[in-house]
């Protein structure tokens, strides 16, 4: 924001007219004396005298008051015929499966009166064991997106299914060549339908029909490497829960790589320092990823060094001499750990380069991981992208040599192909192009036919995400629009079925038949109840064969990494405002993509600090002759001489109608427009910069040049460190934790007091009380939360689940910049500075410098700390409320009565945790939020949880500890005349947590998990010394690392005491 900008009051000022100069110092122009005014004879003739005006005013006030007294008549419409499984006012849960082409999970869908309103992971069934990610939880909002297509399109205008089907069937009949370009198909039924289609076309040795699988994010490198090493184009299953040593070279397996919903759960299980063993996690990467931020040892490497790191480790593990680079120290530690854990090790590489994956395979083979942590039999069937075929097709289409009929299903190649623009042009020359897509997106808007697919939650689907795992997705709502299942469309075009309309059973019957064929003894109803079942797996007899590693990536002076962000991923949910507003787990930036660069490298060139007023400097990145201009974000831990840019942004660059929230908004509402009147996309699309070798590559040589100007950025956290304050974050190492007493790493805060002899003695904080204690400790319930900083990976699922459960409004970028985001739960991310031995521990108390402690280290260790209302038993917010709108319950809850709140905001000012959020605007109606807040349109409003009030302007709100769920849980127990079982009550955040880092429960239940956690040796309370006695406990973060400095402080100094 430029503050030197000059604004003119009008043309007069600009032109400095004599009139203007004469009057410019008068605040009120044309001043008239009172006498003049009263002497004006015309005054009495004016139509409305002053008294009349007052009379009118009085009348209208009275009239308005009277009108307001009239209570509006509320209508109530019961069902004409009530469906059997719906009880108005009670939720109905469905077990289902989520798959969007990249993320996969077994889920539970909560519906109210037939509307899906909440999604959580299924902890009872399915191999993902309750793992989810923010996109899966937020997908429920996508169902109610008003930009979704409501009926099929022909050349951009609405048409009927009958016309579409006739047209496509005719085109298929006359076509010489038909190509189906889809994302990875894991549905056995769709595979069967495609095979039937192919059989029909490819009779007698013809090859008229071709099916190509293509994903925006490709894992072809892994499959090709496995083809070379094992003779099969497979991706094996990885089991992180068995891996005592995890080495990841550029793989963000907790957030975006391969199957994070499964891996995060497995990983979380190994991060328990109280357990038998705790995994040791090494990460070699360029951009600080969610996974990297959780690593015990993290090393910064350039993408071109990935192969070198793996090659070094291969040699070193075998005891051979090798030379290493700047990463050698970390690699040596990793080698030592790998040698120790041998087959209980797991090496993963994130690169899509065949050679790098071959090296990872070789290392795993040497360690003996195959058959132990890696299962070659139960293969992962996701991510089947065939890059070579897809790129060839893209080139053909771009050159005008495409097939006669091109059906595109679940893909958006115009957006995600490196030559997307040329592809779009070529698409128009194809005789018949068909897009099976829910939106008229970049690709669909260039197609002859657009056939809208059902939303996941409206559809019968089946999935085989792994060779031995079969799952189905069931509809949880009748289709909202005139859409049709993709499976049905394929069957209809193939002549195998007729359209079934809105209540079609075509897909259902077909899936049932598929299941019966695959599992003849299986019970389909039982399958529907659980959503999944296992299939027998034929043990693979594959042995590792070494193969020559070719064309390793070349190094460049500056290299760029194209990565995915936890919320936006590959960009298919760019129109989801929940995800856009979710702060990135590492950078905490919302609503934008940017160039990440290490602040050390930015020094002197770009601004390394930013706030509401001061944006970030812009820079231009040029890769392969293509360039984008984006702000430069200072990311500690970014490898020197590398930059990172997130994929998935710049959606709708031609103003395609992909959803309101996918575009930039103006300060007072409305979409920002470019000079040529198009909507401005958020961020820039960098898919065009991917290099294409044998596979798509997500790193390249880049040139960074300065660009003029700054760009405002909306981050929810602009400080980076805790500056050595151990009362917020506490961290220790595994060896200290195992060997030492609690006092070494988790010392209770002590205050001075006078004993009865008048001497100063130290006493724990718990002995000091300002007020009489609330009666929460003995009677009734006392609800509490425990958050394990060791297992929290910072993924952001809890934040989105909270938003979904509690009707948290979306406020848009401008408001986030003003610090007015409304999230009830935030995840603070803290970097260690060079002044700290670990996050929160001063390295040297004597020389500690607060100025230096503000600056994160070059490659800092990171702590993610979810923070919500602490429900303090001595809550400072309660005592300052002038109208008692926030009070304490005898169950330990800090309750907020919205209709009592008058908005003084004293409470927020007095909250030491800064978790209270003030409603500055009427988010559900004010025009500024029309584009971003889903509650502003009739469809989007359907996602609101009817058990939680939608707060209005001028009141304070905050985490209620999901009081609606507490009440519901209690009521169920009361009605069944039984006590509440431990674990029965779950908040939205604890429900969503893939690593079970968040534990909630009744503290007064002596056998409860929360009681056990709160009394454990790692338990501490943030800002305990303030004496607010919160009901939230944190568990000390334990890193499985060697930290001699911390050893010195926590062990040596303690001994000294």
């Amino acid at each position, binding site marked *: 924001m430029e503050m030197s900008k000059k604004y003119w009051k009008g043309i007069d000022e600009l032109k400095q007219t004599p009139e203007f100069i004469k009057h410019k110092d008068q605040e009120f122009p044309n001043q008239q004396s009172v006498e003049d005014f009263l002497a004006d004879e015309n005054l009495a003739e004016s139509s409305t005298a002053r008294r009349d005006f007052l009379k009118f005013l009085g009348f209208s006030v009275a009239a308005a008051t009277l009108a307001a007294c009239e209570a509006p008549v509320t*209508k*109530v419409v019961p*069902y*004409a015929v009530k469906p059997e499984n719906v009880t108005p006012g009670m939720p109905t849960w469905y077990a289902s499966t989520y798959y969007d082409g990249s993320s996969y999970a077994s889920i539970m869908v909560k519906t109210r009166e037939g509307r899906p309103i909440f999604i959580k992971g299924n902890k009872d069934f399915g191999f993902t064991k309750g793992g989810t990610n923010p996109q899966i939880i937020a997908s429920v909002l996508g169902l109610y997106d008003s930009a979704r297509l409501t009926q099929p399109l022909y050349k951009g205008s609405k048409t009927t299914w009958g016309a579409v089907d006739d047209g496509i069937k005719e085109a298929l009949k006359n076509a010489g060549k038909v190509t189906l370009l889809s994302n990875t198909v894991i549905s056995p039924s769709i595979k069967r339908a495609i095979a039937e289609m192919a059989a029909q076309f490819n009779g007698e040795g013809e090859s008229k029909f071709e099916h190509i699988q293509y994903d925006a994010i490709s894992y072809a490198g892994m499959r090709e490497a496995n083809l070379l090493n094992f003779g099969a184009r497979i991706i094996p299953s990885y089991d992180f829960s068995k891996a005592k040593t995890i080495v990841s070279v550029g793989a963000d397996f907790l957030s975006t790589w391969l199957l994070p919903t499964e891996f995060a759960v497995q990983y979380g299980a190994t991060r328990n320092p109280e357990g038998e063993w705790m995994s040791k996690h090494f990460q070699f990467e360029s951009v600080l990823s969610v996974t990297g931020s959780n690593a015990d040892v993290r090393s910064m490497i350039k993408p071109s060094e990935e192969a070198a790191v793996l090659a070094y480790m291969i040699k070193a593990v075998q005891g051979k001499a090798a030379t290493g680079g700047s990463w050698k120290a970390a690699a040596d530690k990793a080698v030592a750990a790998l040698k120790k854990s041998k087959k209980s090790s797991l090496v993963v590489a994130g690169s899509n380069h065949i050679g790098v994956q071959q090296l990872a395979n070789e290392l795993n083979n040497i360690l003996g991981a195959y058959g132990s942590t890696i299962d070659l039999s139960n293969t992962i069937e996701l991510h089947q992208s065939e890059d070579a075929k897809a790129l060839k097709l893209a080139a053909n289409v771009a050159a005008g040599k495409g097939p006669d009929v091109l059906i595109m299903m679940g893909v958006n190649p115009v957006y995600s192909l490196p030559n997307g623009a040329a592809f779009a042009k070529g698409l128009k020359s194809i005789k018949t192009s068909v897009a099976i897509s829910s939106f008229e997106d970049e690709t669909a808007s260039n197609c002859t036919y657009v056939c809208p697919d059902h939303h996941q939650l409206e559809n019968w689907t089946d999935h085989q995400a792994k060779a031995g795992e079969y799952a189905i997705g069931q509809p949880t709502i009748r289709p909202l629009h005139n859409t049709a299942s993709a499976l049905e469309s394929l069957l209809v075009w193939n002549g195998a079925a007729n359209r079934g309309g809105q209540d079609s059973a075509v897909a259902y019957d077909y899936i049932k038949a598929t299941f019966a064929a695959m599992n003849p003894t299986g019970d389909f109803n039982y399958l529907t109840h659980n959503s999944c079942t296992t299939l027998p797996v034929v043990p693979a007899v594959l042995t590792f064969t070494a193969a020559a590693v070719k064309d390793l990536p070349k190094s460049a002076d500056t290299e760029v990494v194209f990565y995915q962000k936890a919320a936006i991923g590959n960009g298919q949910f760019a129109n989801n405002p929940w995800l856009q507003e979710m702060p990135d787990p590492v950078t905490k930036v919302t609503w934008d993509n940017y160039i990440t660069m290490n602040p050390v490298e930015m020094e002197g060139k770009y601004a390394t600090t930013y706030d509401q007023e001061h944006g970030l400097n812009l820079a231009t990145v040029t890769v392969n002759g293509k360039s984008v201009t984006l702000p430069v974000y200072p990311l500690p831990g970014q490898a020197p001489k590398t930059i990172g840019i997130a994929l998935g942004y710049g959606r709708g660059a031609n103003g395609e109608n992909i959803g309101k929230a996918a575009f930039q908004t103006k300060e007072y509402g409305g979409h920002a427009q470019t000079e040529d009147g198009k909507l401005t996309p958020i961020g820039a699309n960098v898919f065009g910069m991917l290099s294409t070798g044998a596979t798509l590559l997500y790193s390249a040589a880049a040139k960074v040049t300065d660009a003029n100007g700054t760009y405002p950025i909306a981050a929810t956290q602009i400080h980076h460190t805790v500056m050595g304050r151990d009362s917020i974050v506490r961290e220790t190492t595994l060896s200290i934790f195992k060997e030492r007493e609690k006092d070494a790493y988790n010392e209770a805060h002590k205050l001075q007091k006078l004993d009865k002899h008048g001497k100063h003695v130290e006493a724990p904080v718990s002995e000091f009380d300002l007020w009489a204690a609330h009666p929460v400790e*003995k009677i009734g319930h006392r609800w509490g939360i425990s958050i394990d900083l060791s297992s929290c990976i910072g993924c952001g699922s809890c934040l989105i689940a909270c938003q979904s459960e509690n009707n948290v409004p979306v406020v848009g970028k401008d408001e986030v910049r003003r610090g007015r985001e409304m999230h009830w739960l935030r995840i603070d991310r803290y970097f260690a500075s060079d002044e700290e031995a670990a996050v929160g521990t001063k390295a040297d108390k004597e020389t500690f410098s607060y100025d230096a402690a503000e600056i994160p280290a070059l490659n800092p260790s990171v702590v993610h700390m979810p923070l919500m209302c602490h429900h303090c038993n001595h809550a400072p917010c309660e005592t300052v409320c002038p109208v008692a709108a926030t009070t304490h319950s005898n169950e330990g*809850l800090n309750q907020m009565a919205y*209709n009592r709140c008058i908005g003084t905001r004293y409470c927020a000012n007095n909250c030491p945790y800064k978790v209270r959020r003030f409603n500055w605007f009427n988010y559900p109606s004010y025009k500024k939020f029309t584009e971003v807040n889903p509650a502003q349109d009739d469809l989007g409003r359907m996602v609101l949880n009817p058990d939680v009030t939608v707060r209005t302007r001028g009141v304070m709100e905050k985490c209620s500890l999901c009081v*609606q769920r507490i009440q519901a849980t209690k009521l169920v127990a*009361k009605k069944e005349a039984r006590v509440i079982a431990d674990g029965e009550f779950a908040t939205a955040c604890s429900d969503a947590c893939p690593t079970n880092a968040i534990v909630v429960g009744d503290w007064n239940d002596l056998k409860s998990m929360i009681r056990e956690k709160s009394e454990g040796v790692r338990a501490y309370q943030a800002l305990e010394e303030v004496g607010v006695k919160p009901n939230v406990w944190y568990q000390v973060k334990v890193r499985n690392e060697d930290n001699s400095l911390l050893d010195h402080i926590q062990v040596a100094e303690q001994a000294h005491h």
Partner: protein
Amino acid sequence: MEISNIQSLKRIKSLAFASLIFSFAVFSNFASAQGEGLFKAKCATCHMPHKNSTGPKLAGVRAKWAAGGAKDGSIYQWVNNWQTAAANDPYAAEVSKWSPTAMSAFPDLKKEDIDAILDWVDAQPDPAAGGGATAGGGATGAEGALSAEPVEEESNTWIWLIMGVIFVVIIMAVGGVRRQLKIATSEEEGEAEKMTYGEELRALAWKYRLQVGLATLVVVISIIVALFQSLYSINIMEGYQPSQPIAFPHSQHAGINGIDCKYCHNTVTKSKSASIPSVNVCMNCHKQIDGAGKPFEGQIKKIYAAAGWDKEGMKYTGKTKPIVWNKVHVLPEHVYFNHSQHVVVGGLDCKQCHGDMTQQVETVKVQPVEELNKIEGNIKLTRKTLTMGWCIECHGKKDVAIGNGKNAYYDEIHRRLKKDPKLYAQYLNDDGKVTVNELGGWECAKCHY
């Protein structure tokens, strides 16, 4: 499983109600008591004398069978077990196709019993034939009252307004005439003093200043009081009785027919809302009871329209249209109220908050607290019904049965409470019981979240 047993019991009960209702619908003048009794006990659930319902009409059925060429005695066989009859007699086989609903077997009915029933049936006058119309039209007073539409208040108001305006005009005209006369007389008498209206009024006011002052004071005070009262009455729902699309008499259903509240409002034990029954619940009984010829026939037709019931063809058309009711008990949106909490856990009876619906002849209204206080066993409350004060007052007085071994949840609460004997004693000391508010029933987030 216990719940489903209760439900099945209710279903049986409801069938009993249905047959009961028939017995009211059919009027008898004379017949053998045996025939009438048997008909009502065995047949009336499905059959009517002069009208097809689940089963065909029974009047003249013997003659009909004979004319149709049925074998002798076949009809008695049919009643005992229709399948035997259908197997033996082609006419009976034909009759069995009348409806897909199979008739129950009555093997215990002897030939004379059946004859007695059919004699009685044949003796019943046909209401459609005119002679019996008076019998059919003999509506009870309650039914007559309910069919009357609520009186339109608006028209009355207009009359009053117009009359008021006329009166004002007359008064002013009279006053004007009087004044003109006065001026005329004064002119005649040559009095110089001419007072305007205002001056006259002021003089008059000054003359009676004490009275005027007092009157003004009274007026001002009453305005203030009225203002405050009207402000306090904002959103007071007491006595609220909106019109309804169907003039549903609870007195008929819950009162005369004795249908349990929970039969129709069947989510009251499961959910936060008691829920207005969906039309398919109405149809459980009204499939039979069509009110033909009764003043409320039109009301029942509305149910048929909503359910898509084709009365003539005795089948559903599939075209349903939900009924849009006007909500009576409206709570603000920031209030969470759960029926099942109060009914199942608290053990409240519906009438404790909704009044005695068996007496509610007109459409539902929010019962004033004075009426509710008359209900036996109710805590006497002072605040207006459905206000927060009303809730709070009850929560402050109502005791919670804890520690009596009947509900393990409350036993656990009791066990924990005993750990703090001082507090427990404090709870008991004031009124000798643990009230809802002492367990947290006055806390904001119990109802507001």
